[in-house]
């Protein structure tokens, strides 16, 4: 297990290193001068030069890369060009919106998808199955921003059950904050839940057709018992893979949704940062998201090993 973990960690490190170079180079070729953006139409050349110097935009490419990576390793993501405050702090603050949102959506999608997928698999071919498959087919096809628009119209403007967006802050009350995250989480979770339910169903049907299910039935287990005791855990591996992929998608997919609901999260921050040429923020947030994705995949792989003794042994 340890050797397995170590070798996965090594490849994690390599992935991150390659990613950092790619991200840095990609961002550096972005046209647009952050100093010019900050100073606007009437800026004078000497003022611009002074600001560029102050922002550390005049070093060589290599120096800036080394600064950036070195800083990140120390937990210092640098100082935002436009906000003039520590990127680490900004990320930390925004993370308190994006992360709960992603987790909320993930929880929602799991809570919806698991029973739906299991139900459909158990009632394969029956009305329940057809219904779940039909609804999820729609759920997969619906663009989440369009769904968000429709929800705002119905629930925020028309019924006024929820606020149309914004985020009060956790210090204003957990309940209020969760309420503010509900519509965005639902918008994010719907397509994810649909995918997950379908994966759950087909993974279950796959395991249900395995020989060992027949063995279990021959022992006297009912269909339901065979499903619960033998099929579910075996079906978990493909489901875990999807959940892992979904987490990263939710973190990034929040970009649009956070904008629709004007939530002060990482997604909105990165959009603003791109339009303001706040390179250091863009770099750092993208890197952070890549790191999160790689990390989640890593944890998913460890989770496989927990589910499957064969993997544990091979490791």
């Amino acid at each position: 297990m340890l050797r397995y973990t170590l070798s996965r960690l090594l490849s994690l490190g390599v992935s991150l290193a390659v990613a950092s170079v790619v991200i840095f180079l990609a961002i550096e070729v972005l046209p647009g001068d952050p100093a010019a953006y900050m100073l606007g139409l009437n800026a004078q050349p000497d003022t611009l030069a002074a600001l560029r110097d102050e922002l550390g935009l005049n070093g060589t490419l290599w120096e800036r890369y080394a600064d950036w990576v070195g800083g990140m390793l120390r937990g210092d993501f640098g100082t935002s060009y436009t906000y003039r405050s520590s990127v680490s702090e900004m990320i930390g603050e925004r993370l308190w919106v994006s992360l709960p949102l992603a987790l909320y959506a993930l929880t929602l999608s799991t809570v919806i998808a698991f029973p739906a997928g299991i139900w459909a698999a158990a009632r394969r071919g029956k009305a329940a199955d057809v219904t779940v498959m039909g609804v999820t087919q729609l759920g997969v096809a619906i663009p989440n921003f369009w769904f968000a628009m429709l929800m705002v119209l119905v629930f925020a403007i028309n019924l006024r059950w929820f606020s149309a967006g914004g985020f009060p802050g956790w210090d204003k009350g957990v309940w209020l904050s969760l309420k503010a995250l509900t519509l965005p989480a639902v918008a994010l979770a719907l397509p994810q839940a649909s995918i997950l339910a379908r994966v759950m169903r087909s993974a279950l049907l796959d395991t249900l057709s395995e020989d060992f299910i027949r063995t279990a039935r021959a022992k006297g287990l009912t269909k339901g018992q065979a499903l619960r005791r033998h099929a579910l855990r075996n079906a978990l591996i493909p489901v875990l893979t999807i959940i892992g992929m979904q987490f990263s998608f939710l973190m990034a997919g929040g970009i649009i949704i956070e904008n629709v609901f004007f939530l002060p999260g990482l997604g909105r921050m990165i959009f603003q940062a791109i339009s303001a040429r706040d390179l250091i923020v863009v770099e750092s947030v993208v890197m952070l998201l890549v790191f999160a994705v790689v990390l989640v995949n890593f944890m998913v792989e460890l989770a496989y090993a927990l589910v499957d003794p064969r993997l544990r042994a091979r490791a």
Partner: protein
Amino acid sequence: MSLLEISNLDLDIHGAPILRDVSLSVAPGQIVGVIGESGSGKSMTAFTVLQLLPEGAQARGQVTLNGHDMLSLSEAQLCRLRGNEVGMVFQEPMTALNPIRTIGEQVAETILIHEQVSKSEAMARAREALNRVELPADRFPLSRYPYELSGGQRQRVVIAMAIALRPKLLIADEPTTALDVTTQAQILALLTRLVREDGMGMLMITHDLAVMADMADDIVIMQKGRVVETGPAATLFETMQHPYSKALLAASTHAPDREDGTTEQPLLTVRNVVRAYALPRKTLFGAPGQVQAVKGVSFDLKRGESLGLVGESGCGKSTLTRAILGLEQVQGGEILFDGQPVFTGHAANRAVRRRMQVVFQDPYGSFNPRHKVARLVTEPFHLLDAPPTGAARDAAIAEALTSVGLAPEDQHKYIHEFSGGQRQRIAIARALIIKPDLIILDEAVSALDVQVRAQILDLLADLSKRFGLTYLFISHDLSVVRAITDRVLVMKSGEFVERGPTAQVFDAPQHAYTKALIAAAPRLPEEA
């Protein structure tokens, strides 16, 4: 009074008739063997008893188990019976166990499902059941996972689950088909012992007459969903009436009419061949370990000879075959074909390779399903420097197909339009088309039903006569090897343990392993 009584059973699946008018009975302590070729409906009969039928199945008739009318019980009632009054053992032990739960949990589950006992008591009784199937506690603790066990050991776990509650009836569906011959003998002995000890009735399903001849009390022969012959095993072989039964018996013991065409000229020479594989690295930087699959073997194959290579799975015979075909480089020794090495430098020697061809086991997997027969059988033309085209190509295809008993027009069909036996004929046609000297038959008849197998063996004998072919016949099935070869090599753990003329080796085996192998092979009564 019989334990299991099936009478006038009809079964349809989605309207297609599967069983018609099936009747049989099993008494306590009795072993009844149901025999038939694939598609005869024998497995469906077993599943009907347990009512574990696929969706869309419709059964009519009477199935009475220990007084229960199985066709009219509710699902809940059936669940109480399954595992409790009737246990079942399946064909494929590799997949019959849940890979992520321990063997202890899985055996104990049978008990926990049916009786109100504590987890620890169930585990203790699971231990007992495992002991009974000869999986002792010191080597097979309850915490073992299935992947840590061999196929035979897994089958024992499945049996332990089936007999944990000492059911009245045990149903075994081809329980040894997937196992090696020595393991098969052990499992059959185990089942017989358990039946005798517990006074269970056993319904055993198999395609192998010989297996049943040894152990069954009664035999039921099925064909196309109908029972064609029933009778006590002791006398059935003499008294059988139905032409199908007779044909089945004849095919099972069939030996093709052939003559020894061995010459003195060696065609293939294998000298001290070593084939080793690298093991996965144990540490990140250490040198990877090695495992030797073939440990320095030597033999000569003479022109016109038919040489058998016998061994159980994992003995190294497939590895050796691949080396002979020049598909993989060997780590030691040399392989010469007619004096020339099959592997030169890093590439196989085309000049040699075009003179050997191979026929594989699986008639379904050995053809690209997207190509027509003409393209399939002409694939070896790739080895020729100037492959025939146009009319010459058509003639070659027609000749190859005709010589294996197919029509030249068959070249325009796709492979899925043929039966398993026909496919194997096409595989032979593919091997013949470039007129090779040597054909390697890698388990070439193992997957076929017994009657088809007899036909293919006849074909092979005939071709050998007509074209003066040399065969290297690789199989785990002793009866087939005995029927078709002049000389035999017995392989175990990468080495030859015994070699000699076929008749001599089978009649008077010298090595202990050969003896065990031959003893384990089920046999039909001599006089039949």
